[in-house]
């Protein structure tokens, strides 16, 4: 029974480890190149099995003697044999170039110019947009909001998720799969639908939240229209929306911890609390770190919920980095400022993503 559960846990975590393999597979490629030549490959090309590693070397050395680089490139047996491979990646690569790589460099360029989306000629202003970002009042508010939101939501979400994962993972709980499905439900709805749902629940006066809080003596809070609380109203909605992700990850990791380790700790006289703190959580560390990193990346990119619920207001109290980018590009006609903000967002996200890759790599 426990074994079965543990296996399920591992299966769900597979994509993480997969990514790690992706990440490091690239490094190992050159050595793999020869070893992966198959028997069929040799049978078809007529190269002898003994000289398995030879074909490429000989092709390379002969290419030095035989004229132009292009011709020698073409003569390399591995290139000629695998022209078909390019046909396979072609559709993807075209789209990837047009909608990923191209836009990236274009965005860098846009951050150096001034103008709106429709203006045909946009004057080059160098780094002035970046300088403006540091002096503009709204940008400072935006940075402050995004930072405040991130440092609030990530610890809250991760700690509550950890507690809830321990709750569901408790030995007394039967039908764990049911609870896992339940916490998945909020992940299904779009941010727009979630915002609709919660705008009613958080509504002043006749909202359910006001009603429930009145039982514990909390006065009426204008969750979405009071500048002091609006960001926390958003936080509440996003917490509800995202908590399932963390719980499911933690649950999988927790159930994957071998039962023997728990038993060993208990035989040594540890109580349940000590087992959790000293054994289970340390073993879950990579997953927790992954959760923190993902939560941080999402938190800095908060937009949908803000757009639908408060649209940055009241008085910019929920204006986030991505809200700024959207509005300056598509409403205020300041593409340069928006792109510069995008680059700043990239610079914030990149080191965090790097940690993400490292975490995945370690596992």
């Amino acid at each position, binding site marked *: 029974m426990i074994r079965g559960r543990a296996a399920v846990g591992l299966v769900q975590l597979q994509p993480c480890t997969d990514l790690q393999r992706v990440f490091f597979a690239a490094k190992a490629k050159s050595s793999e190149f020869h070893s992966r030549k198959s028997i069929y490959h040799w049978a*078809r090309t007529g190269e002898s099995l003994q000289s398995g590693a030879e074909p490429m070397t000989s092709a390379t050395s002969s290419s030095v003697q035989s004229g132009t680089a292009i011709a020698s490139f073409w003569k390399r047996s591995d290139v000629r044999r*695998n022209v078909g491979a390019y046909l396979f990646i072609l559709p*993807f690569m075209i789209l990837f170039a047009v909608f990923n790589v191209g836009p990236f460099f274009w*965005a860098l360029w846009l951050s150096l110019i001034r103008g709106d*989306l429709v203006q045909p000629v946009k004057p080059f202003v160098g780094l002035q947009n970046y300088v403006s970002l540091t002096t503009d009042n709204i940008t400072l508010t935006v940075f402050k909001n995004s930072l405040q939101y991130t440092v609030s939501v990530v610890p809250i979400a991760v700690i509550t998720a950890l507690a809830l994962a321990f*709750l569901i993972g408790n030995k007394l709980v039967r039908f764990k799969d049911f609870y896992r499905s339940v916490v998945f439900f909020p992940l299904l709805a779009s941010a727009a639908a979630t915002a609709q749902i919660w705008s009613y629940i958080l509504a002043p006066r006749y909202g*359910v939240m006001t009603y429930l809080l009145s039982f514990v003596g909390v006065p009426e809070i204008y969750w979405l229209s009071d500048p002091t609380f609006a960001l926390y109203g958003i936080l509440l909605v996003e917490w509800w929306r995202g908590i399932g992700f963390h719980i499911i990850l933690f649950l999988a990791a927790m159930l994957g911890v071998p039962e023997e380790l728990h038993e060993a700790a208990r035989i040594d006289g540890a109580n349940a609390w000590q087992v959790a703190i000293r054994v289970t959580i340390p073993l879950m560390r990579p997953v927790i770190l992954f959760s923190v990193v993902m939560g941080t990346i999402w938190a800095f990119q908060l937009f949908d919920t803000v757009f639908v619920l408060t649209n940055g207001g009241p008085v910019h109290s929920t204006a986030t980095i991505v809200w700024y980018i959207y509005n300056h590009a598509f409403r205020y006609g300041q593409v340069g400022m928006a792109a510069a903000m995008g680059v700043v967002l990239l610079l914030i996200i990149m080191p965090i993503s790097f940690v993400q890759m490292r975490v995945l790599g370690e596992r």
Partner: protein
Amino acid sequence: MAQSIFNRKTQKFIKVLPQAVVVYVLLAALVITMLGPYLYIFSSSFKETYTLISIPPQLFPEKFVWDNYTYILRELPFSLWFFNTILVAVLVTVGTVFIDALAAYAFAKKQFWARDFLFGLMLATIMIPGALLLIPAFLITNKLGLLNSYGGLIIPALANVLGVFLLRQFMQTIPEELEHAARIDGCSDFGVFWRIILPLSAPALATLSIVVFTSQWNNLVWPLVVLNDKDLYTLPLGLALLRSEFQVNYGITSAAAFLSVVPLVIVFIFLQRYFLEGLTVGAVKG
């Protein structure tokens, strides 16, 4: 003997009982927190306008009415938004899975010049936040004349880097012998891909389909910048519009929000496994 075993069991039961009560009370609270909001808007979508703002709020409507549903279906282009969302999500899913599978096959099973460079490049783009690409992607879509059209929603979404990673990982585990056997039987490159690799990759294809479909179904930002015409709106965009136009008519917004979630809930109930597997895959892009 039997007596003492019984006693021991009873003792153990009494010992864990307080803990079990606490655990199950907390679990009940969790279930209410997670599902309550859905159930509440479901019940609210049948409320009459004046009971929506009654104090204290009513958990169940005094009188069930269908007015909110008839309003969004008759007076608003809601069914059109529904259709648009399904069309776009299905086409993007099918297209992405096919294009990604083609590329993943080459990356997993073939040697070619610049393969590792291209793969590394793809890996690096995962770090780029979507908001940075939003403006130039919009400008490119504009240049291609795709603004305010289904094409503008579908085509830019077709190249999914994470999909290639996922499928490549899976395809690498398919034994080469199968491929060789097919080739000896006279299969072409595409034949191997279509008849051997694709069918064997079904679980990974299903996971990717779910991830892509869900993210398309819920996508707000891209439709928001690409579309003008209300008749082309997708559900998330329509919901956002309702929020600004029917700010306080919670019956209408509840009915619309509920209808927009139902299809995914149904898919989820039947294909839960792939949703759970896809969770960490979709997570990487954010």
